[in-house]
């Protein structure tokens, strides 16, 4: 068999790259007030639609140019990271809580609970999610909470399925039987024994779900129902910039890149984590 290429970026290297990307985004989100040259809402009609600094008509104070009402794109991307990160984290956290608990109960109790929860999982999977998300946001408005709730609706399934299958296999294992034989109550058993055992895979699914949530939030903004467009989020900037693709390409391109890099980072970290926790690299 042919020899495998000498240098191929191992998952560890990519994992670090992912961590670096996420680290930068986290730093920007936290240090936004200090790092961002302007406030995201500073409107300056005279400075509208300036191209990035390196272009002829660019202005060095606005590194990545300005948008249709003269706000600094770079600052909005820095501030926007807060929304996108928080949406991504909140959605996957909420998804994790709901999904894992349901998964645990389904896997551990089996029988009717398992059948009901699996039915719920199948219904969720059978659902044209994007359409449903648009619908829910149309009904409840595009505020931060509704968006996170809707995105959690998409991510809980990932957690539920992983945790359910793990819980089922763990249930049969000796340390669970031993604990049960010693008379450990079910809630304690779930919390002290099963949860820590499934925690690692929750973390893995968590990073993928965060990536998925950020992507979906951007898509929802594109369809006009994402987080309230007046809040500087990358998705809203992308939606705003799409009509300026030819006349002011930077308005859409830079938020698009920001989303791509963050999601890339989250996926790489996910890959690395899943490899560390399950060496067979499923």
């Amino acid at each position, binding site marked *: 068999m042919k020899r495998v290429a000498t240098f191929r970026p191992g998952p560890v290297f990519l994992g670090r790259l992912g961590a670096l990307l996420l680290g930068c985004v986290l730093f920007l989100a936290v240090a936004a007030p200090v790092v961002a040259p302007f406030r995201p809402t500073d409107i300056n009609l005279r400075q509208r639609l300036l191209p990035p600094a390196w272009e002829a008509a660019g202005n060095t104070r606005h590194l990545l140019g300005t948008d249709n009402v003269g706000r600094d794109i770079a600052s909005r991307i820095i501030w926007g990271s807060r929304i996108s990160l928080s949406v991504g984290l909140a959605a996957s956290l909420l998804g994790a809580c709901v999904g894992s608990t349901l998964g645990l109960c389904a896997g551990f109790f089996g029988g009717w609970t398992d059948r009901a929860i699996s039915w719920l999982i199948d*219904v969720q999977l059978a659902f*044209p999610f994007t359409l449903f998300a648009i619908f829910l946001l149309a009904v409840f408005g595009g505020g931060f909470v509704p968006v996170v709730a809707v995105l959690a609706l998409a991510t809980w399934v990932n957690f539920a399925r992983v945790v359910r299958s793990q819980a089922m296999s763990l249930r049969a294992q000796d340390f669970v039987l031993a604990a049960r034989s010693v008379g450990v109550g079910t809630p304690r058993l779930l919390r002290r024994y099963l949860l820590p055992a499934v925690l690692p895979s929750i973390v893995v699914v968590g990073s993928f779900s965060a990536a998925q949530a950020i992507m979906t939030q951007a898509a929802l903004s594109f369809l006009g129902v994402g987080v309230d467009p007046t809040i500087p989020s990358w998705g809203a900037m992308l939606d705003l910039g799409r009509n300026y693709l030819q006349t002011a390409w930077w308005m859409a391109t830079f938020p698009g890149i920001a989303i791509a890099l963050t999601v890339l980072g989250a996926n790489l970290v996910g890959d690395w984590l899943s490899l560390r926790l399950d060496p067979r690299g499923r």
Partner: protein
Amino acid sequence: MAARAPAAIFQRCLHGIAVLLGVSIATFAVAHATGDPVTLLISASASEATRAQMRVHLGLDQPVIIQYLLFLRHALQGDFGQSFIYRQAVATLVLQRLPATLLLAGTAFAIALGISIPLGVSAATRGGWSAWLLQGFSMLGLAIPSFWLGLMLVLIVSVWLRLLPVDGYGGLSHLVLPAITLSLQSIARLSRLVASGMREVLRADYIRTARAKGLLERRVIWVHGLRNVLVPVVTMAGLELGDLISSAVVVEVVFAWPGIGRLAVNALGQRDFPLLQGTVFIAGLGFVLINLVADILCARIDPRIRLA
């Protein structure tokens, strides 16, 4: 072929129906939480009498449960009622748009399979450039928002290079860009699954036996190896196809593709209950059917699977 107990298939269908019921309940419940549709259906200056007449006409004055049961009975006969805004039977509207969505989703699905399987297999067996390509596809595929990719593709391929039409529904040339845009995420997911599946299968004893029999490497990998990877791939492919149909809406908007996704988006914006329920229901039905076919396919590939 091992005989498949018909009871097992029936049980799968029952499960499918239960799922479909779940889908319809969810749509119906949320659709009605959205407030009074009549305000949108009638222009601002219509008289109250007209509005009441419209409410009766649409059956909105009956209790919700009755409306749902009515909806279900009709749905089973393929009658999803009249669309408020298009004033046509929802079934005809959706069925008219369904071919466009199926064509787009189907082509994207074919592209995804056509690329993922060979790429995944060669990444697992030969590594080298194919492993790089797979890494690139999966990293970018999941990171680039599909609508942004679509807009960029149109800008480059249609406007600057003038190779393909910008958008719209039509022959093959219209299908290329939207299908590629839509397929990217599926390629990312499927090729990774094929690669990891193949890597695992190649560690199996029967592969060593096949090689000990002096079989050509081609047969060892593509017959002995791939067949064992197919079961997880087919299951995921079923989910991917379903996902393609539902998440095609973004691509349909960018490429002006007259699919059911855009139909539903219009329906949402204007509180068109019947159209919304019909679209989501039919998409859900499609999804259940796809998964059923995937299950049966898996059973044919791996006789050990009992259709439990």
